[in-house]
């Protein structure tokens, strides 16, 4: 009985199998011809470089993704070191693949937002009801009193692929744990508030302000703006005053008594720490710590 069924099965199945085999073979031949005719020569180095990259397609290098960067590097080795998330490690690997020597590059760069004004600190002239993007809010004058500070509509948040930036209380705040240092936020900010800074230490000191107006005007519109008084500059020369604004030379920065004093003496508390374990910034209303000591 079973045997008879088996024969029946075989008799009805073999033509189907044969047809499938025939079709499959003919397609295989067509594809074989096509694959020879349409062969694309790929440099094996490109694949190796691609493996060495972080493969997160962040676009920090200026190319569409890791694979296109790999291709570009293989052709033009001078592009080496453009991969911010991969950093020195990826650069070293690529150099090895391309048989090159590279000089030591500095510490990895991370973004710092040069503003510390939250909703309560800044003066708003008018309620903005347009497209909720910084780039369009920035095109209108007088939405926010400060022409230099964070608008808080989060263009940088939208640009960040790693969920490392958030608008907290009207201010863009970097989550340094998640940040890869790709620099997309720095390009997105229409006010150029975000700067890629070489993080030589876990926490970097910074002047969290970009306001270039004179002290009086700054004081009148923002509680935590830099008024360009120069107290920090008097402590240590890694600070400099340009156009009513204190700047910190990040290359020379290290945490010592002078910089600590400068931070404490700052009347508006605009010198703050930014980084992985940065402490909460001083409240602007509080008296400078040095004065109370």
């Amino acid at each position, binding site marked *: 009985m079973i045997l008879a069924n088996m024969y029946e099965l075989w008799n009805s199945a073999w033509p*189907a199998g044969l*047809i*499938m085999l025939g*079709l499959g073979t003919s397609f295989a031949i*067509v594809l074989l011809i*096509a694959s020879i005719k349409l062969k*694309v020569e790929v440099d094996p180095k490109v694949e190796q470089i691609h493996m060495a990259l972080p493969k997160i397609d962040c676009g920090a290098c200026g190319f569409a*993704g890791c694979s296109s960067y790999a291709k570009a590097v293989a052709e033009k080795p001078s592009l080496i070191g453009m991969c911010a998330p991969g950093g020195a490690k990826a650069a070293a690997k690529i150099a090895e693949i391309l048989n090159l020597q590279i000089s030591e590059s500095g510490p990895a760069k991370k973004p710092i937002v040069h503003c510390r004004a939250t909703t309560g600190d800044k003066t708003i002239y008018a309620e903005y009801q347009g*497209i*909720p993007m910084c780039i369009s809010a920035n095109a209108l004058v007088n939405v926010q009193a400060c022409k230099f500070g964070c608008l808080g509509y989060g263009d940088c948040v939208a640009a960040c692929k790693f969920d490392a930036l958030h608008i907290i209380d009207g201010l863009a705040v970097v989550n340094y744990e998640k940040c890869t240092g790709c620099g997309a936020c720095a390009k997105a900010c229409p006010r150029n508030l975000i700067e890629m800074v070489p993080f030589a230490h876990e926490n970097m000191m910074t002047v969290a302000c970009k306001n270039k107006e004179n002290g009086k005007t700054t004081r009148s519109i923002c509680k935590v703006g830099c008024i360009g008084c120069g107290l920090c500059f008097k402590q240590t020369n890694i600070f400099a005053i340009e156009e009513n604004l204190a700047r910190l030379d990040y290359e020379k920065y290290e945490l010592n008594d002078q910089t600590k004093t400068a931070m404490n003496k700052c009347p508006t508390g605009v010198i703050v720490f930014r980084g992985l374990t940065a402490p909460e910034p001083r409240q602007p209303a509080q008296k400078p710590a040095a004065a109370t000591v």
Partner: protein
Amino acid sequence: MDTLNILLMAFISIVLVNNLVLTKFLGICPYLGVSGRIDMAFGMGLAVTFVVTLSGTMTWMIDHWILMPMNLEVTRYVCYILVIAGAVQLVEMYMRKFSPSLYESFGIFLPLITTNCAILGLCLFINLWGIDNLPEAAVLSFGAGIGFTMAICIMAGIRENLNMADVPKCLRGAPITLITAGLLTLAFMGFAGMIK
């Protein structure tokens, strides 16, 4: 003249009235996945058009000239998938050679045309509707591709403008896309009854 008329009718029918995406809900994956930018959507539409034209015509030929005379209709699905997969491979190789930028921007969606239900659906519809001449099958296949391209390009155009719109927070992303797709479908339902 009569044949031409039938062919024209078939074309309009598959593009507008029986649009695979908008009235049959086939091929939704690329329709939602690759409709972010209009140039990519157009490229995807062209790739699908090529594959569907090739596979629709070839499956008709295989069906009518090989399978039906040998009473092997049971293997229809397998054969169809074989043809579609082969055609997709061909498109992929061609694209990689002659348009690497498009090839890269498609990424995973290009090989996924293999499992695009719009294509297998069209091949099976041709069989279901009892199309019994080759020109009509070819026109239907080509029209299905054009219809897909049209639908995905309309969608991409809308989505490009949606980026600038003030969408309520709870609807951002996928929800508003699906609502848009639904409204678009409603609009296309208006064509039903245009051709009997």
